[in-house]
């Protein structure tokens, strides 16, 4: 006769409902931290803004055109997303492994894809708050004049850029499952080189066509170029490709990264389980 202890409690939620609840549960800590811990204002807005100001003053010291200062502010705001993708997506599963959460995620009757999506959504909302603050304060401080060519197109570029960036982050997260502390160094290495090749602080057109085209694999490149073209009077003449082409390319990148993330996650999760790397600490 079956005892109470042997009886398996059925899952209260399954299918898409479980998926959605997992997404919300993983996004929650990333959202609530903004309320519980106020120092993020200093560390995520004030100090990055100070760093962006240094680049603005480099232009000012060399009497650069005013729009380039706006380019720096946009670059500084968008770079917040790249940092979030690197540290809070790419490297996140490594930290989860270090703190013992990763094994729990794998054991839980939910999808890892939902966990990554929750991380991405939470990170997106939080980073948008930070990026918007940098944009508004930076623009006011340096009297940046925007000339918006098309609001719907600008919104489309922004949304597609976030999908592509966080899709890439989800892909990184899967790949980094197999890495130890070298993952930290690789993430560190993906900062300045990407800021350089994506033209975070200058128009990407400063490079030749093929370098810029190669750099476009990082969604930040096309996103910055398109946003600048749509936001400044000189944006189009300093632009790399036609904005509509960039929108299509961003959409393609978004789809490609999400599909790759799903595939990689499945493969690497299996490999990590087989090699027993989910609970090891290689700090």
């Amino acid at each position, binding site marked *: 006769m079956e005892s109470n202890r042997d009886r398996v409690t059925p899952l209260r939620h399954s299918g898409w409902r479980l998926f959605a609840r997992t997404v919300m549960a993983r996004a929650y800590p990333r959202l609530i931290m903004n309320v519980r*811990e106020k120092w*993020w204002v200093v560390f995520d807005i004030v100090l990055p803004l100070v760093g962006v100001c240094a680049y603005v003053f*480099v232009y000012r010291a060399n009497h650069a055109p005013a729009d*380039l200062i706006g380019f720096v502010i946009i670059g500084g705001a968008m770079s917040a997303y790249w940092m979030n993708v690197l540290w809070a997506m790419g490297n996140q599963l490594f930290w989860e492994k270090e703190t013992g959460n990763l094994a729990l995620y794998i054991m839980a009757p939910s999808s890892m894809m939902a966990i990554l999506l929750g991380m991405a959504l939470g990170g997106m909302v939080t980073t948008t708050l930070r990026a918007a603050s940098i944009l508004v304060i930076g623009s006011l401080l340096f009297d940046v004049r925007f000339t918006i060519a098309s609001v719907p197109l600008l919104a489309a570029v922004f949304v597609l850029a976030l999908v592509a960036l966080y899709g890439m982050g989800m892909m990184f997260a899967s790949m980094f499952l197999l890495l130890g*502390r070298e993952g930290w*160094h690789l993430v560190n290495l993906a900062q300045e080189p990407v*800021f350089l090749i994506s033209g975070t602080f*200058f128009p990407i057109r400063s490079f030749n066509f093929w370098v810029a085209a190669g750099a476009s694999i990082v969604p930040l490149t096309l996103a910055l170029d398109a946003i600048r073209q749509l936001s400044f009077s000189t944006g189009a003449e300093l632009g790399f490709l036609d904005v509509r082409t960039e929108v299509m390319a961003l959409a393609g990148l978004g789809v490609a990264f999400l599909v790759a993330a799903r595939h990689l996650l499945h493969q690497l999760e299996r490999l990590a389980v087989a090699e027993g790397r989910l609970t090891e600490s290689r700090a």
Partner: protein
Amino acid sequence: MWTSLRTATWLGWQIESNWASPALFALYSIIKPLTSAAILVVMFGMVTQGNFGSTAFSYMYIGNAFYMYVGAVMAGMAQAVVDDRERFRTLKSMYVAPVNIPMYLVGRGVARFLTTTLSVAITIAFGVAFLQLQVSPSEVRWGTFLMALSLGIALLATMGLTLASIVLVIAHNSWLVGEAVAAALFLFCGAVFPLEVLPWWVRPVGYLMPVTYWLELVRRSLVGRVATEYPTLAAFSDLQLVVLLAMLTVAFGAIAAATFCRCDRLARERGLIDRTTNY
């Protein structure tokens, strides 16, 4: 005391470099600083039509190259506390062992200094070879340069110790403190542009920062002409800058010692030495 310093330097070097093969580590040491400098080079080249032979370029390039030490040494020492306490969980063992903790932290800073020296040397060599950077070994005033470098490293060690002490007693954002302060100083100390470009009400912050004088002394010893090109510190002779820097280093050393004593006592009282926040 010296054993603590020596051992910590060796340990720091291992932590910094043994995560990859020597070849990959060398590549890492080259790519990061060069791309960081390249961002400024492209910005400068775009607005000046590639006038890399100018004094303005030397000012910016050398300032940026040597500023790497500020981030590496200061942030490295603060990060050492976070790593040892939170990741490796060895800080309590350090405290139990007969280790001089301040010297241990300075040793970790020395390790970062050594790895960064490779990056700085490569960046300067790249500038000379490909970007008309006006640094000629025969014209460098080596005595002034070495004195400036030594004083600067001592100064950064004191600033790093102050930050590391503060990290001992804070839980949140502790891993960001070093890099955040280094990023802020980048703006205020005129590393890549003269202080005159800053609004008048911000400039005093730059004049209070010893890193401002250190970078000026390094620039002058490498390219003499920058001293007369910008009015920021033109009124100061090299000797005056050395004396000023030495005095500020002593002052910051006193601040670091006092901060460490205070924070160390607080951390012991509150049981923070073996705290794991998972933040």
